């Protein structure tokens, strides 16, 4: 008995030793993670920056400070790849060189990722609970973004000139379109093969948005499959064949009645549901055609990563942001 027990213990010790040695050897496999210089930090008030610094900078800046337990493999491997991915998407140490509006656009996206529970990554929060954004901190970020931009006289004058020129450009665009809209255009498919569907403009309206974050306005249209799914309440998952079109226009300056109207056409985006065909992109084929030339967006099929990463927080709603207006027939 004693002999058997002793041999078992020996085996266990050996297994433990092998594991420990293996574990220590793995520590030597260390991808490099450096902190490049901070070239242009985000321009924002200190209280805004402080929150981002506490919750986001560890991955989304060149000032990554890893606690000791993040430096242990395999955690270190995950953290390293997350930080590299995070910096590629948004780097607070470098976006200060962008125009103020673009910096704010990144902050709007950041607030949305926080609100939707996508950021900081839930897996990261479990190990770094101190990085959680409190409701009070979220309010600070939101209030900063809601406040109207503080334009000095020069900036205001420049904005007025831009608005006037945008208005005449939109007029010219309308004149051209209204006289040629009967002529079918030759529009290329997206780089992922999703075809442009000119008939989108005849689909039913399922919602609209006033995007004050980027001064655009949108109509969201659905094909017959989409409308039927809404009417029958089968919108998660959406049935194959569902197709949405989101049409975006610039917002004009207010007219004499104080109304902001559709200005220049910005783009039309399609989401085509086919759970099998588009399995690699969450069951949706994404496409975006820019300008009245309807130029496919992106340089190659890699553009889809932007679509899927932005839609990821809506995974539990079949990746769809739009909340359709009820009462469809």
């Amino acid at each position, binding site marked *: 008995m004693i002999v058997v027990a002793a041999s078992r213990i020996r085996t266990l010790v050996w297994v433990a030793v092998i594991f420990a040695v293996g574990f220590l050897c793995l520590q030597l496999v260390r991808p490099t993670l450096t902190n490049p210089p901070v070239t242009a930090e985000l321009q924002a008030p200190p209280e805004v920056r402080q929150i981002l610094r506490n919750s986001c900078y560890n991955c989304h800046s060149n000032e990554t400070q890893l606690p000791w337990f993040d430096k242990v493999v395999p955690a270190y491997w995950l953290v390293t790849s997350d930080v590299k991915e995070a910096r590629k998407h948004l780097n607070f140490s470098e976006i200060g060189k962008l125009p103020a509006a673009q910096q704010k656009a990144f902050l709007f996206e950041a607030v949305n990722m926080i609100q939707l529970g996508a950021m900081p990554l839930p*897996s990261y929060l479990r190990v770094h609970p101190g990085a959680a954004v409190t409701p009070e901190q979220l309010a600070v970020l939101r209030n900063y973004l809601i406040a109207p931009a503080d334009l000095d006289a020069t900036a205001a004058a420049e904005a007025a000139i831009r608005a006037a020129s945008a208005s005449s450009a939109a007029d010219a665009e309308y004149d051209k379109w*209204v006289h040629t809209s009967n002529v079918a255009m030759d529009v290329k498919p997206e780089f992922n093969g999703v075809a442009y569907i000119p008939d989108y403009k005849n689909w039913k309206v399922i919602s609209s948005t006033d995007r004050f974050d980027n001064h655009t306005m949108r109509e969201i249209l659905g094909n017959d499959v989409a409308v039927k799914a809404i009417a029958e309440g089968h919108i998660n998952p959406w049935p194959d064949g569902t197709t949405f079109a989101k049409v975006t226009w610039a917002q004009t300056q207010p007219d004499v009645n*104080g109304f902001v109207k559709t200005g220049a056409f910005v783009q039309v985006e399609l989401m085509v549901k086919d759970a099998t065909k588009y399995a690699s992109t969450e069951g949706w084929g994404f496409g975006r055609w820019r300008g009245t030339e309807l130029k496919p967006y992106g340089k190659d099929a890699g553009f889809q990563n932007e679509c899927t990463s932005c839609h990821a927080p809506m995974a539990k709603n079949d990746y769809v942001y739009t909340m359709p207006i009820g009462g469809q027939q």
Partner: protein
Amino acid sequence: MRVANVFLLGVVVAVGVVGCSDKTNPRVATKLNQDAMLVGDLPANPLQGRVITSWIDKRNATMSTMFGNDVAVQNARTKAVVPYPVGAVLSVVTWGQQEDARWFGGNIPKGVKAVEFVTVTAPGAYSYERFEGLPLKKVASGEGGDPADRAGYLMSVRAAVMP
């Protein structure tokens, strides 16, 4: 000891990363925008029509979408110069606004403020109806040919560019 702790932590981190929570963020939960539904006795459902354009009244925090029947849409999208031909029906739904729970930076429709119909009945003549309330009830109607009034204004709004 330290090594064992570190190893344990590594496992915890790995499990934490792989595991996932079942809680659905209420902003993400699947639902329809019931607030913005058209409820009431309307002569036609504007949402069955095709979109012509939309606008936003920033001062009153409302957003409107103008729809048309086939005659109206065909005219709006191919002729820079209104008048609409006989048989054209325009319908305009005006909603209040609410913050889009799923996208801070966007407003989406809330309760319906008004539904309006403009029907071109004869060359230069049209009827106008306006519905308000919950349920929607007719609050105004009339016939006319005065291009300075509300119906005339609605007929002068040009279509949004949709290539």
